[in-house]
């Protein structure tokens, strides 16, 4: 192993909390999703800053260059500017912007996720074009303006027809550059994700935030594996309801928890919309693990064993920690179905655990 790999591994181990726990408090990690723009997601890279004597960034100003009147805003306060000359105020955390398309690849690489083996019923491969290259011919609608301009500029300077005072650039046929595509093959098959979430009184904002982030990443990954994906949402307390995405993440219910209600609804939904011999089915259930009664838990297991598990590619149960839940459901589930390939369970104590949990769920390549 080269020296840089040793240092790199050591850094990764610190970030993952395996060694040197005393440094954990200095890690700035942010969430897995940073800012989310139109097609870009910015991912904060983990960073450890050793403490030093520095000035309070809120008091330090600086000098910049550019237009703007006195009072014009040049940066927002969140994050830590470090007040050096030449440093931008604001963002201290190192972020990289990544197109959503690439995000899944990165995720797959980071978590070493295996590609999904689909159930193999409709194994049609479809081709998809992606515009990543440049060519010298093509339709006008795909003309690459900057490249064309540069070529024309080069030619005019080289041939002496460029006039600096009146810099008129006229591209000719030879200058034109066009975007061109490459064909990427993608398996085409149907997949559906059904999310179920416990929204009983014990699930707070923080728990929902965890579910939101986790399902974003699961979506991103599965979308990269299947061409079209259908997503459905079910919330439940003592009763289950099918809802839209907005409601799923923001509803706040109260009351007891009857998990079987959600599983029954899920079963009906599959029967109605996603015949299991045509669809790759992914079911995710998030809860704090507190069920109404042991009897209901038994009923859940019966539904799982007889109905849901045989139909799905993967059934994932994620248990978020809440101050109220006993977390019994996870223990029971693991006891009931030990070593069942179709079932993945994961305990998510806090946001930091999301990473590991995604790997628990998707690491089997089902």
């Amino acid at each position, binding site marked *: 192993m080269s020296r840089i790999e040793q240092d790199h591994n050591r850094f990764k181990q610190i970030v993952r909390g395996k060694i040197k726990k005393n440094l954990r408090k200095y890690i700035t990690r942010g969430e897995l999703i940073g800012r989310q723009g139109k097609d870009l997601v910015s991912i904060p890279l983990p960073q450890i800053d050793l*403490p030093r*004597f520095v000035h309070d960034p809120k008091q*330090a100003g600086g000098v910049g260059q550019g237009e703007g009147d*006195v009072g014009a805003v040049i*940066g927002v306060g969140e994050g830590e500017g470090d007040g050096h000359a030449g440093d931008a105020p604001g963002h201290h955390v190192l972020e990289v912007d990544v197109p959503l398309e690439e995000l899944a690849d990165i995720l797959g690489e980071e978590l070493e996720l295996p590609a999904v083996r689909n159930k193999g019923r409709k194994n049609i491969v479809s081709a998809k074009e992606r515009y990543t290259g440049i060519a010298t011919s093509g339709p006008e609608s795909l003309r690459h303006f900057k490249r064309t301009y540069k070529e024309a500029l080069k030619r005019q300077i080289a041939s002496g027809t460029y006039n600096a005072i009146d810099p008129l650039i006229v591209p000719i046929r030879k200058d034109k550059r066009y975007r061109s595509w490459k064909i990427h093959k993608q398996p085409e098959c149907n997949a559906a994700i059904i999310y179920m979430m416990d929204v009983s009184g014990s699930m707070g904002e923080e728990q929902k935030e965890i579910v939101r982030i986790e399902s974003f990443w699961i979506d991103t990954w599965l979308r990269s594996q299947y061409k079209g994906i259908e997503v459905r949402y079910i919330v439940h307390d003592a009763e289950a309801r099918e809802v839209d995405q907005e409601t799923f993440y923001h509803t706040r219910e109260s009351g007891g928890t009857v998990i079987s209600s959600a599983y029954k609804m899920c079963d009906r939904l599959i029967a109605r919309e996603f015949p299991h011999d045509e669809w790759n089915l992914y079911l995710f259930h998030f809860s704090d693990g507190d069920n109404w009664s042991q009897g209901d838990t038994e009923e859940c297991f019966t539904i799982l064993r007889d109905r849901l598990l045989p139909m799905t590619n993967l059934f994932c149960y994620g248990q978020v920690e809440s101050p109220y839940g006993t977390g019994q459901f996870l223990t029971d589930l693991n006891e009931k179905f030990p070593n069942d390939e179709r079932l993945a369970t994961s305990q998510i104590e806090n946001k930091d655990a999301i990473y590991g949990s995604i790997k628990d769920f998707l690491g089997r390549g089902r």
Partner: protein
Amino acid sequence: MSLPSHLETLRREIRGYAREHGLDFFEVFFEILSYEKMNEIASYGGYPTRYPHWRFGMEYEHYQKSYAYGLHKIYEMVINNDPCTAYLLESNAVVDQKIVMAHVYGHSDFFKNNVWFSKTNRKMLDKMANNATRVRRFMERFGVETVENFIDLCLSIDALIDPHSQFIAREASPESAQDDDEFVHDVPRLRSRKDYMNDFINPPEFLEAQRARLDEQRQKQRSFPEEPVRDVLKFLIDYAPLEGWQSEVLAMIREEAYYFAPQGQTKIMNEGWASYWHSRIMTEKALTDAELIDYADHHSGTVAQHPGRLNPYKLGLELYRDIEDRWNKGRFGKEYDECDDSREKREWDKHFGQGRQKIFEVRRFHNDVTFIDTFLTAEFCEQHRLFAFAYNKKTDAYQISSREFDTIKQQLLFALTNHGQPFIFVTDANHGNRGELLIEHRHEGLDLKLDWARETLRNIQQIWSRPVHLLTIIEEKSTLLSFDGQDFSEQETSGDQAVA
């Protein structure tokens, strides 16, 4: 690896141009690297062999990812050594390699001639490698984690050095200290030949004042250190109860901090100088017609302005050009400054022709602080649209606070002085007569970032092993932060600061 022949030819050509222009550089060894190797060496700050530490791994991850996502790539890397070592990226276009070479000769000239670099170790490549070997040996003997944890502590305070100490003698020599001891018993009097004049020449009030002064001096001698010490690292090396290997590690970190200090002190000047020369060499000599567009594209990227940010390449480059122009035309001095006629001023040209000579002189004697202090003009600020910004609590945003020359200059100088870092001194190593360490922050209008200050204090305590205290000002109140190894405490004091 030696350069492939086409690059070697280019190197000779560009080296020739640099010489013709009067650049006086350390010989430069160029090495050509793949981007993986480039990222690796960049993570080590340009030194192929460095001691093992996780932060280099962190740098590596950042470089790797930014490269992989196409955000950023390293074009140029050069290190202050004799001979100078510089790296070229294998995949770069030929025109880029030429720019980098020209740029690097500029840096090498700066390293060799700028006086702030004069005390740096020019065999640092070897020294770094030796340090690495020593650290590895300590790690084998005392455990990776033990040694690495100690390095973490040292890095947390590696800014607490005294960069000017290399140029002046701060500590009195031992002999003169002994001299002081002998005479202090008697109050010195002014000599008078006539006894009857004595009461007039040495009146009682005068003798009293002298006595008080001596008392104070004696008091000071009892305290230790006598004068506030800015080189906190050295103080800890000399007086903290460290094991042999710990002293060596701390001394090594300190050595590296001193080595890197001039690069921090001359960022604007150094990058400006290199950009000035790559621009002249390329546009006057080295460019072929076919390369012009790519050169312009690349160069404008280097000196691009980002909103709200100051690009040291751009600022330095423009200031050198401005100085050259002013000294060519004689736009300086009393006569010019006192000229009220704005039109006359604008067209001022006395054909002095001293521009070139002046910029070479500037690159020899100045650092960023004196550079900005001496050569930043109101006209320059106006022309380059400089502004000062500040944080606004109400809007939680950084906003442009001024376009006044004086404010901008003051703000910029403040940010450059001590590299924008707070001034910290050791003032008492026997605080409360209990062997506790008192360090003081010389408050210059900005409070410390408190959570970090506490954590740093914790690290110093681990080195000093007895309780440590930090005297600073928090929201206009003089405050003593303490850490005794277990708990933090904080109390307002009325105590005078020794370094105020």
